[in-house]
């Protein structure tokens, strides 16, 4: 979706006509706002694509750029400046929302690198089709219990044993989720610091970990739904 463009060809500023490259929000010469630049979310914050980010610094930079770009600052500006302020701020907000969240950031970087990730919302059939091999049996059991619980809820019964069993399962999946997050973080380090070979293996690992994570958190969500969180 967002390709990293190496723009060697200068683009003329709409206001001062002096050329600059296509990766800046403001003209380096006259400081006027520019149309949304090419480039990825990292470049909005002048960052190298990395998975470990200093969130405090990111927030500070988000606030600094918001103060300069936000449509509130252009309420009485020229129409084209208003349009660009809107488009630039949308880009800034989209970028911040994506980068500040560790999972979205990881998914985004992997997509940028060409990985095919499955979408967040899926139907039930797809979910069970991709159950991780080590969890197959347990998941089958869990789904049965969830069905029983739903039926019990419908008829107004309370099955304490079933409830306890589901609560236990939820805790177990939480622990598994934490383990996945731990693994993800070590892959971040591997990617951030590694050479091309290490990066490529880290990418593959992360795609698999994200799939597993999505699967687990859907399970937790289903259990929460049934237990009424």
């Amino acid at each position, binding site marked *: 979706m967002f390709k990293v463009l190496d723009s060697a060809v200068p683009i003329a500023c709409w206001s001062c006509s002096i050329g600059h490259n296509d990766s800046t929000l403001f003209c380096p010469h006259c400081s006027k706002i520019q149309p949304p630049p090419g480039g990825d979310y990292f470049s909005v914050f002048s960052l190298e694509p990395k998975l470990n980010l200093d969130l405090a610094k990111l927030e500070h930079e988000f*606030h600094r750029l*918001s103060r300069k770009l936000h449509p509130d600052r252009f*309420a*009485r500006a020229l129409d084209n400046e208003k349009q660009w302020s809107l*488009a630039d701020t949308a880009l800034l*907000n*989209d970028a911040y*929302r994506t980068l500040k969240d560790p999972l979205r950031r990881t998914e985004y970087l992997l997509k940028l690198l060409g990985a095919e990730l499955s979408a967040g*919302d899926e139907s039930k059939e797809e979910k069970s089709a991709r159950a991780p091999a080590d969890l197959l049996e347990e998941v089958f059991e869990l789904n049965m219990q969830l069905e029983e619980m739903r039926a019990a809820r419908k008829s107004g019964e309370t099955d304490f044993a079933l409830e306890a069993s589901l609560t236990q399962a939820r805790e177990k999946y939480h622990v598994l989720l934490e383990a996945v997050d731990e693994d993800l973080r070590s892959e971040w380090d591997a990617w951030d610091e590694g050479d091309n070979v290490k990066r490529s293996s880290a990418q593959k690992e992360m795609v698999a970990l994200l799939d597993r994570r999505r699967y687990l958190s859907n399970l937790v969500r289903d259990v929460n739904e049934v237990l009424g969180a």
Partner: protein
Amino acid sequence: MKEQMAEGRVVGIDLGTTNSLVATMEGDTPMVIPGADGSNLVPSVVALDPIPDPVPAGGYRPTVTVGNSARKALIQTPERVIYSVKRLMGRGLEEIQEELKLFPFRLAGDSEAGEVPRIQLGELRFTPPEISAYILRQLKRNAERFFGAPVMQAVITVPAYFNDAQRQATKDAGRMAGLEVLRLVNEPTAAALAYGLDRAKTGTIAIYDLGGGTFDISILKLSDGIFEVQSTNGDTHLGGDDIDNLLLAIALNEIHAEHGIDLRQHPGAVQAVRKAAIEAKIKLSTESAAHFDIELPNGDRYQREISRAGFEMLIDPVLKRTAGPCKQALADAGLTPEQIDEVVLVGGSTRIPAVRQLVDELFHLTARGKRPHTELNPDEVVALGAAVQANILAGSSKSTEEMLLLDVTPLSLGIEALGGTVARIIQRNSTIPASATEHFTTGVDGQTNVAIHVVQGERELAADCRSLARFDLKGIPPMNAGLPRIEVKFLIDADGILRVTAREQRSGKAAQIEVKPTYGLTDEQVESMILDSFDNAEADFAKRLLIEARSEAETILAAVERAPSSPAWNQLTGDEKTAINLASDYLNKVKLSENAAAIREATLILDHATRRFAELMMEAAVSSALRGKTMNAAGEELAETVTAPHAMAPAEFK
């Protein structure tokens, strides 16, 4: 007269369910602009004036009254009055039918599904944005009187939980009233701005806003002048109105049972009971019991006492409905109640002690030795915040230079996918402006149109969400199925309103988009509903000033004409009488000119010349009350204590 800036003032407007206000910044402080009657609140009530009797030959132009005087008409001519119109903004026919069960107004008989419903008011029909436009025009005029200059731009507040259609309807109303709406601001966020002006610079605050018809909860993070909304939630159909309706329903049922009268057949009487219910509700905030005592059409009296305990039990289910949104907002922000540093109460309904109790429990306030903030008047705080935002947008003041509001979209945006499910493209609580890009293609060879259905809401099925619009992408170059690649960019702007652009990527052609909003007026319809085109241009503003100056001149001249018949006239000296006659002759001449300033000046001269006469009249009127004092002493006392404009003075506004 206030100094006029090159581009004119931007005012802040709170367009409320029950009351509306207009505010501005005086130096570093926001203030509410009072109306001609001196009151800060303009009741959001619009009345169609009675048909003149006899009807003038050549017809007449229907006129409307807004505010307090319209409220008086509610009991006399209920079929010509509308209130709480905010509840109808941006809503479809079926929703309005449901809503109207609780109100005395009726839909126009020819309302059709798919159109913006019209409300029948006397012999005329109005859309909800038109009614709101009348309220906005009144606020605009109040501001213009205050500044002595046209006001063309405004910031208008809306409930944070308003959807796209409700926001668009509010913007349309502004345009009809001759106002350029520079920004729609969420009400709780506006309240935060009003409080944030002189408050600690960092922290997490929750704004609990229970107004006349809507409930909002917003959680914000403050840091160095940046107000960053973390999450928002609410219910656009929950507020003081619901409490009034509960009390009203009980009273009507009891009256029916005890006195055998079904008041529902007497709209004027229902309004009288409603008024009594509202008064009882207000009284119960400070006292332990309130009395109903209403005369019925048959001469019977309906008398009843309601205790605060009984009242609280009755309204408990209504108040409980605010708890869910609060918990969801906390969860969405990833915060626990303990992490909320401050809670701010907004909206008239937060005066109810039971509401404060509930807020205390939801945010563990007493347990942490905290109290909610209520320092600013809960009826005014939103308008004050709107004035702050107006000042930020005007970019003209040091005090707001460092302030910036980063708000969120309250509802997720999605598109209907195969099987009627929703593919979410922008999540709720995303900072706005926010955007998403999606790609579409064709399913049939040579297909040149693609239809997209956009919905707002959190449910899994499109049918359970709120339909926002259907987009028809047209002019796709004929290609084999699946070959076109149409990129559609969805962008929610800073007002929380969706904009869509599309491009066919293989041909590079910008696809034409036909937008069919599910609820709402077309641009042409809005144009045709603009209230008075003469409200818009500066030249026409001068015309209105002239009309107003002439009418003030007429008022004082009429009073002078009656003067010789008053006993006070004989107490004047010959010189004084001559001065009055000269001044009134002069005004009589000048009032025919086109010069509003000259007419005002001549009015002031006559006003000055008649001052002693007016004092004499007042003395005569109050002398009985001041028995035992000399006329002189009475005069001195009057000069010191009477602050009302004297009998003949035209109403003066700074």
